[in-house]
């Protein structure tokens, strides 16, 4: 892969605020800025812009679509925070907008900054005094550890398996080529070109579909952990299915169908949600279900947002009281579902019930819905958005960064595989393939936090019988 030495990141906090700043720093910063910033008359001017002069204009993406109205400033080396050429884009402070501008800058040739990297560069370029050196080192290490643990936490399960599989297959191909190069008299590459071509197309397809889901938020796992709670058979799984847009949870009329926990990553108007559908909670003798109930409680503790679903066609009971206690200190929304089946519990009644259980919580929105008739969903989504943009709920900044990193790595891996394909099409010799295969292998490794080390040599010896 090309080595990118110009870095970018959101410099302000990842909460909604008046102004957000995206900082781009490094030898290529001005070029990157120039590619995405336009004056009101549509010109690219940053390359010739005077240092430290605020310019008004817009950020545009590759298609020329305007992302936001912004102020841009070029700070030429060494007169900047990092001591390098720096471009700062001041935009409207929405998380979504900041994220979009950052992504445009990554596509324009910057790479995502490592934790603490701006500060590190500032220090190395003599812009920060010695007293802060120790602090800088701590920040680097702790942020890195946090990012790693966050990254690993997000990636238990399916996605990491998919990536591991891709890596294994790529490694095998690299080892095969390398073994043949090292021992041409024992291992022949005849017909390999055609075989690899098919393989690469397969790998490209699989990577591309990962990339697509990344856009929707399945891999970009930032943001808001949302837990759906409620008694059995009130429609929790139906809600999940509606949000995801496909039948993931098994929905039946039998209470307790969801016996374990289902997780999905969804994108609601540009906000990423990690939605967890829990088993219904009630007093139960069923062991399997009991575990599910315990888990639901645990997830509720981790949640940024709880959606409490209740069946408005039946009376409230002790179980409701019990579950509502989970949301004591959490941001929450109550959905009075099954409005189509007649109303036993009105909003008024529920509000009173809630006051009784959680006297402190008068702020919780209550919305009437019918999932089977798809009623009330818009109001629900609107409420969620408002909560987000008013800063009531927010995800974790670091997690957002690792996720962006995942997407970047995935994109790089995809590009490396494209280069392999191109090498094959151009009739290059086999030894050229393994160079970019290695690039893809390395990038996939970044997603699951694995380094390359001696993997190739190990694979060669374990899979191929070498000569002499």
């Amino acid at each position, binding site marked *: 892969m090309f080595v990118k030495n110009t870095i970018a990141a959101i410099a302000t906090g990842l909460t909604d605020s008046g102004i957000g700043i995206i900082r781009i720093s490094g030898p290529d910063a001005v070029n990157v800025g120039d590619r995405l910033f336009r004056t009101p008359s549509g010109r690219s001017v940053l390359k010739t812009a005077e240092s430290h002069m605020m310019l008004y204009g817009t950020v545009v993406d590759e298609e020329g679509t305007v992302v936001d109205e912004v102020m841009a400033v070029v700070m030429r080396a060494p007169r900047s925070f990092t001591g390098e050429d720096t471009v700062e884009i001041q935009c409207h402070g929405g998380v979504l907008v900041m994220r979009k501008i950052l992504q445009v800058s990554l596509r324009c040739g910057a790479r995502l900054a*490592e934790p603490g990297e701006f500060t590190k560069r500032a220090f*190395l370029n003599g812009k920060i005094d*010695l007293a802060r050196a120790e602090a800088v080192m701590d920040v*680097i290490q702790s942020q890195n550890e946090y990012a790693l643990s966050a990254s690993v936490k997000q990636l238990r399960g399916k996605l990491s398996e998919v990536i591991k599989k891709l890596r294994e297959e790529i490694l095998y191909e690299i080892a095969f080529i*390398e073994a043949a190069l090292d021992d041409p008299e024992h291992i022949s*590459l005849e017909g390999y070109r055609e075989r690899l071509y098919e393989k690469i197309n397969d790998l490209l397809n699989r990577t591309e579909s990962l990339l697509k889901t990344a856009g929707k938020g399945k891999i970009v796992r930032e943001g808001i952990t949302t837990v759906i709670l409620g008694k059995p058979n009130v429609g929790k799984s139906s809600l999940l299915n509606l949000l995801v847009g496909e039948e993931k949870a098994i929905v039946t009329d039998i209470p307790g169908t969801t016996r374990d926990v289902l997780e999905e990553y969804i994108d609601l108007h540009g906000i990423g949600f990690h939605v967890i559908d829990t088993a219904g909670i009630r007093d139960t003798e069923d062991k399997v279900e009991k575990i599910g109930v315990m888990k639901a409680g645990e997830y509720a503790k981790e949640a940024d947002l709880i959606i409490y679903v209740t069946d408005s066609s039946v009376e409230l009971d002790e179980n409701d009281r019990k579950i509502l206690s989970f949301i004591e200190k959490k941001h929450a929304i109550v959905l009075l579902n099954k409005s189509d089946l007649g109303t036993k519990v009105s909003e008024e009644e529920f509000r009173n019930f809630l006051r009784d259980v959680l006297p402190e919580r008068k702020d919780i929105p209550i919305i009437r819905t019918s999932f089977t008739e798809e009623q009330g969903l818009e109001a629900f989504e609107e409420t969620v958005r408002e909560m987000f943009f008013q800063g009531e709920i927010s995800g974790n900044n670091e997690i957002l960064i690792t996720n962006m990193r995942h997407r970047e790595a995935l994109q790089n891996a995809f590009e490396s595989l494209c280069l392999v394909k191109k090498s094959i099409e151009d009739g290059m010799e*086999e*030894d050229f393939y393994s160079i970019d295969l290695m690039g893809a292998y390395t990038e996939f490794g970044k997603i699951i936090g694995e380094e390359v080390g001696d993997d190739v040599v190990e694979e060669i010896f374990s899979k191929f019988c070498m000569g002499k």
Partner: protein
Amino acid sequence: MAEIHEKVDVCVIGAGHAGCEAALACARLGLETVIFTVSVDSIALMPCNPNIGGSSKGHLVRELDALGGEMGKNIDKTFIQSKMLNISKGPAVHSLRAQADKADYSREMRKVLENQDHLTIKQAEVCDLLWQDLCGEIDRTESKDPSQRDKKIIGVKTFTGTVYECKAVILCTGTYLRARCLCGESITYTGPNGLQAANYLTDSLKKMGIELRRFKTGTPARMDGRTIDYSKMEEQFGDERIVPFSFSTDPDSVQKEQVSCWLTYTNEETHSVIRANLDRSPIYAGIIEGTGPRYCPSIEDKVVRFAEKERHQVFLEPEGLHTNEMYVGGMSSSLPEDVQLAMYRTVPGLEHCKIVKNAYAIEYDCINARQLYPTLEFKTVKGLFSAGQFNGSSGYEEAASQGLIAGINAAMWILGKKQLVLDRSESYIGVLIDDLVTKDNREPYRMMTSRAEYRLLLRQDNADLRLRKKGYEVGLICQKQYEELLEKEKLIHDEVKRLKDTFVGANQEIQSFLASVESSPLKTAVSLAELICRPELSYTSIAPIDPDRKPLPEQVIEQVEIEIKYEGYILRQQRQVEQFKKMEKKKIPENIDYDDIRSLRIEARQKLKLFRPVSIGQASRISGVSPADISVLLVYLEHYLRDKKETVDEK
């Protein structure tokens, strides 16, 4: 007892491939040098395969030659078959391999040594190294344990009691230290080929605080050629046009008649003989304690580890022109003699074979090379260098390369000049040494092309362009050779420029030429270089539309063509190299105290203390040191350097 007391500059212990290069380098740089060997008749002995080079090893020999080493010249004098491997693949992985006449190879190298000024050959076993503590001077360890203190070498002592006072010692003991050969149940305490082992030096090294370990390797049997039925084998020829190893050898002078090698295969019968007798293999019986290499496994290893393979290739290679002995490549073994014979006789063509020399495994003492700087000097003993199998590598070429570098650096140190460290972006030799001193190698290390991350730049064809200048600066390449290099560089540069600047239009002549070679017609004017980039065209094939072309040497044309055809890939690697170099240039002071860097993770701190890397780049390649640790280290170093500068300023 009256001891003889000699005074020299450098003592080289061992006269194998590493020792020869080390000794020649020192002597050629004007230092009085003694080379010790247990047997003068075994100088530059090839105790295993009868060839030099091969994939990536060929690169090493070319690099060695570019720097002023001897191996390339010596094999050019003594080869009996030559082949460029991987010729159908990219130029980066083309690699030369030549079959040697072993006796000739050894004799010719001995002649070179014998006729070298300032060089003395001495048949003697060195038993002791003599040293002094460096108390107070540059001792950074301040340890109470004398073996842990920093020292300086002052001489060696032989078995017969003679003392050679010297400034530097280069250890090139190969597989001789406490060597033990195993052939089934029969064990002999000898070096390779029944030669005398060196049993005393290990203790002396241990006293100095040097940690030793035990590795193992093996060699197949040698057959009486008269008992082999070649009609059952496939003949393997050499190349029609022979490319010499050395850049100084005239290609026309090496075109000669070649001998063939022969290919046959093992079969199920072979494998069942082996399986039935596995319990008698010293490895599987647990008698062998050393770690063997996975890349040249014994035949019993292959059969066990790759049980699904129905057959394995076997190459019969001549040991020389004046012997009937044939080397049985692919079937090294430590099984007992009777099993060996039964096993070999199942192979087509070997049904009636007679074994001249049995296959055997050999165990020997060597070091973990992390105790060395990239200059191949011991971190704790000034003036003590080591090279070759003693450093945990395997192979003649790996040994010779290290020998040359150790020799050069011992000499540079004595002469007070800048030492030579090649990095990973400059040479396979750099990759080899960096891997040895930076990675935790658990088996004898062999060069492989996959180990070189910038291999598009590290081709065997451009080894002179990469390294000759360094050889000249060191003093092993003469003025004339250097000027020839500059001339070659200029010719390449000018011709590439001309081809990029010469445009041809879409006229009738060009279009019909392109049609005649089945290349698509032009839409606009293009440069000649762009035409050469087309897969179906080459520098030679476009000659008809390039009338201004001047005649150029073959090697220049080759470089021009590669530079143009692979420009995109080469540029990408060059950009990576720039990045890499930045990290290599950031040096870590020798007396850095890693315990003082609070934010380092414990694992990273332990590894850094163990390896004591010389640069940030080297530190980043140590397993267990994360990118975040490197960032922390960078910040600390900056802090440290500024602190130091301030103290200096205050003074």
